[in-house]
């Protein structure tokens, strides 16, 4: 049994959201630079040039890469041999988000209630929390700052088993095609396949936070990832949607067991500013 104080989780969440918002990961920067090298569209190259320069400036000056610093999503994997001491875990996580957004000059974009007053909570809380209890005595925290330009272009579809690989492929391509320039391409496309209605959406979100250098461990799914990336990049949407070859930086698939009658698929689109950071506490 290991004791972890929830105030340490607050500190981790705070630091992770600053890091995620100020610094685009080296895996994403490498892919952007590769895309700039390969892009044949002049306006596409200009857009990539601007994005890369922007991300460098943000990191140098501790400024948020994008003014939409997103809805804050936190994935927590908590070892079952951990005893959490201190205040309630949910409050501790929200305290970290609050501190990051208030002290880090990040925009507060959360309204307390969706339909009527839409009053801004003023500190970007409450955040969205996904908690999983896992073996061991570590606490792993993943912070995702998810902008809504791309969130609004995400889709979920309950396919049927007969739709198969081709059904999934068509749905992902159609989602990206319809989104067009709106979600700020080049994109990271997170795809959840299987599970239940809500689980496939959560998997799709998680998939947007995976390192771009990684592929699905099942070679059959890794091949679908590669084929989808190739096909998306034939659509012509291009950087910023101005036309060009770089529409997706990566497609990530996460799968789960599902029901004999179903094939849920969720496509969570993430803009080129894929902002996430993680740490083990």
């Amino acid at each position: 049994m290991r004791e972890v104080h929830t105030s340490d989780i607050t500190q981790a969440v705070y630091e992770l959201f600053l890091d995620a918002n100020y610094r685009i990961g080296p895996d994403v920067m490498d892919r952007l630079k590769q895309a700039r090298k390969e892009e044949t569209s002049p306006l596409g190259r200009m857009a990539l040039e601007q994005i890369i320069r922007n991300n460098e400036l943000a990191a140098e000056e501790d400024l948020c890469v994008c003014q939409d610093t997103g809805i804050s999503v936190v994935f927590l994997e908590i070892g079952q041999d951990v005893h959490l001491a201190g205040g309630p875990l949910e409050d501790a996580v929200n305290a970290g988000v609050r501190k990051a957004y208030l002290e880090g000059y990040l925009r507060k974009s959360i309204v307390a209630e969706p339909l009527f007053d839409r009053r801004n909570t003023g500190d970007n809380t409450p955040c969205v929390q996904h908690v999983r209890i896992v073996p061991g005595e570590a606490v792993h925290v993943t912070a995702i700052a998810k902008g809504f330009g791309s969130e609004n272009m995400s889709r979920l579809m309950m396919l049927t088993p007969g739709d198969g690989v081709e059904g999934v492929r068509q749905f992902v391509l159609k989602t990206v095609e319809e989104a067009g320039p709106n979600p700020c391409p080049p994109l990271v496309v997170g795809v959840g396949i299987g599970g239940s209605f809500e689980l496939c959406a959560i998997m799709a979100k998680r998939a947007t936070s995976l390192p771009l250098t990684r592929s699905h461990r099942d070679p059959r799914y890794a091949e679908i990832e590669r084929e989808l990336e190739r096909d998306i990049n034939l659509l012509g949407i291009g950087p910023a949607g101005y036309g060009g070859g770089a529409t997706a930086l990566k497609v990530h698939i996460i799968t789960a067991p599902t029901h004999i009658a179903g094939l849920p698929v969720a496509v969570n689109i993430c803009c080129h500013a894929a902002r996430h950071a993680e740490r083990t506490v």
Partner: protein
Amino acid sequence: MKIHVQLPLTDETVLLLKAGDEVLLSGRVLTGRDAAHRRLTAMLEAGEALPVSLAGETIYYVGPAPARPGQTVGPAGPTSSYRMDRFTPPLLKLGLKGMIGKGRLGPQSLQAMKEHPSVYFAAVGGSAVLISKSIRSSRVVAWPDLGAEAVHYFEIEDFPAVVAVDSRGINLYDEGPKLYRKTAL
């Protein structure tokens, strides 16, 4: 080859600009996004006078992040324009000449642009720090209670953009991807 464009736009400039032109915008823009557009159109419907004149102006769809001490404005990239579609036709009717945002405009805006010659400029989404360097001053004009969504005057200098929809209705978001598309779904 980038074209230097002075704001407010003149009718001549509106007619000269073509979809796909790279431009550097200088001069004055108004800012406004979802909440400000709702208030502007509610006031119009109630027959009230607007807190700011729109004739000849350009609106930048933006809600900046907070400025650090000493900064004119925080990171301030464009937001998705389609959310303003339902509010845009009455504003164009009042003489609005330009919009700056990112992503597609819907049929309502595109139709209204045909009736009222104007230009839709696109800025690169997610280049908020780079863009903020071209904003020289910022002043609240209306509704400070809206915070990041309040209406501001920005003085901009060499603000990087492209012409996304021109006064003839040519749309870069249609024409650009057509040139590079290598497949049908």
